[in-house]
Structures are given as structure tokens and as C-alpha cells.
């Protein structure tokens, strides 16, 4: 049973559009919520992360929105580009230890 639930499983967006991926968790002890990006043949790499003391974090075109009361967080990719096509994983961890991942979202950005 996955501790972090991610949706959708796949997403197709036109170039310039907004991509939105959602995650939900149950364990309120989680204190770190990263998003990882994975290209084919590569290991996942950290994209952006948030801690529960803030509700939003933005880095360039990537924004995490965090709702502590609902135990949900989401990734927004603004002005999506074909180079953003990849698999995205949300994750959660506590005390910098065991990190649990969602099932992944395969994003395709059409030119």
C-alpha cells in the first residue's frame, strides 16, 4: 500500500499549457515533500521541494502548492515545453530518512 498517492498516471499537455500533478499522503509525520523528474534511462533527479511550514514554493516555471490540512500537494508546470516531457514523482519523508514515492506521472508535452 503506497503511502503517497499520485495522480494522474499520465498527462498530455500542449506546448505553453499548464501541467498539474497531484499527490496526497496520510502520515502527518512527513516533513519534507520533494518532486523528482526522471528522463528515460536516467535515475530520478530532484526538481523542487517544500516543507510544511509554507504553502507555496516557486522556482522558475515550477511551483509546489501545499495544503497541510488536506494532506495534499501539487506540482504546477507553467508554460510547459516539450523538454519537460518526463516522468514526475512526488515523494515524502520524515526526519530525512525513509523517503516514500508516488506511482509517477508520465508527462508528454506536444509541440
Amino acid at each position: 500500500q503506497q503511502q503517497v498517492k499520485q495522480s494522474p498516471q499520465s498527462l498530455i499537455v500542449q506546448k505553453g499549457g499548464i501541467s498539474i500533478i497531484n499527490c496526497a499522503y496520510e502520515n502527518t509525520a512527513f516533513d519534507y515533500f520533494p518532486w523528482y523528474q526522471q528522463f528515460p534511462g536516467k535515475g530520478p533527479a530532484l526538481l523542487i521541494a517544500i516543507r510544511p511550514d509554507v504553502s507555496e514554493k516557486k522556482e522558475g516555471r515550477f511551483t509546489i502548492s501545499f495544503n497541510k490540512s488536506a494532506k495534499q500537494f501539487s506540482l504546477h508546470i507553467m508554460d510547459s515545453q516539450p523538454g519537460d516531457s518526463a516522468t514526475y514523482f512526488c515523494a515524502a519523508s520524515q526526519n530525512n530518512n525513509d523517503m516514500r514515492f508516488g506511482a509517477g506521472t508520465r508527462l508528454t508535452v506536444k509541440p
Partner: protein
Amino acid sequence: DVKVTQSSRYLVKRTGEKVFLECVQDMDHENMFWYRQDPGLGLRLIYFSYDVKMKEKGDIPEGYSVSREKKERFSLILESASTNQTSMYLCASSLYSEAFFGQGTRLTVV
């Protein structure tokens, strides 16, 4: 740059064989992890270690064991490989929060 190196990109093993997957990191990280990645299931934690000789079970430890004799090296052992262990295996290390991943080992058990 942090480097996490997995010893093999591709492995083919026979059912019942004992399989060793090796992972080495070069940044003196305390924590190391083994995940398996399967389509539709994401990354599932097998084992992690927060110090030399220390290990903790993740969500799917059955059929696996690990060894961490040195800080930089974390080994995953399949005691008796089975076809349902065919998967992509990813090793990661972290010091505080960010985890750095290797490129993965694609293991096929026939």
C-alpha cells in the same frame, strides 16, 4: 557533483541464483536507499541504511537483504532470485533531504 554509481546497468540471472547489486556513493552521505521501480507502481522502498552496519526495512523487504560494511557502499542481495524480482533497481544516497540516484540496474530473472 554527487555521484552514485551502480555496478551494472543490465543483469540477466537465473531463477534461484544469489544476486548482488552494488552501489557506491562518493559524497560521504549518511543515508543510502534501495528502491525498485515498476510501471504503475513508482519507486518502492526495499531497504535503507542511515549508518554503517545499520539497516531498516522499507515497504517490500521480502526476498531481499542488504549489507553496509563501509559508509560509501550499500549492497542489495537477492538470496534466491525469482522471476517476480525482474525489475529496475535504483540506489540513492542523501545527507539531509535531497536524495541522489544512480542510473539504475535493469535486472531480468529468467
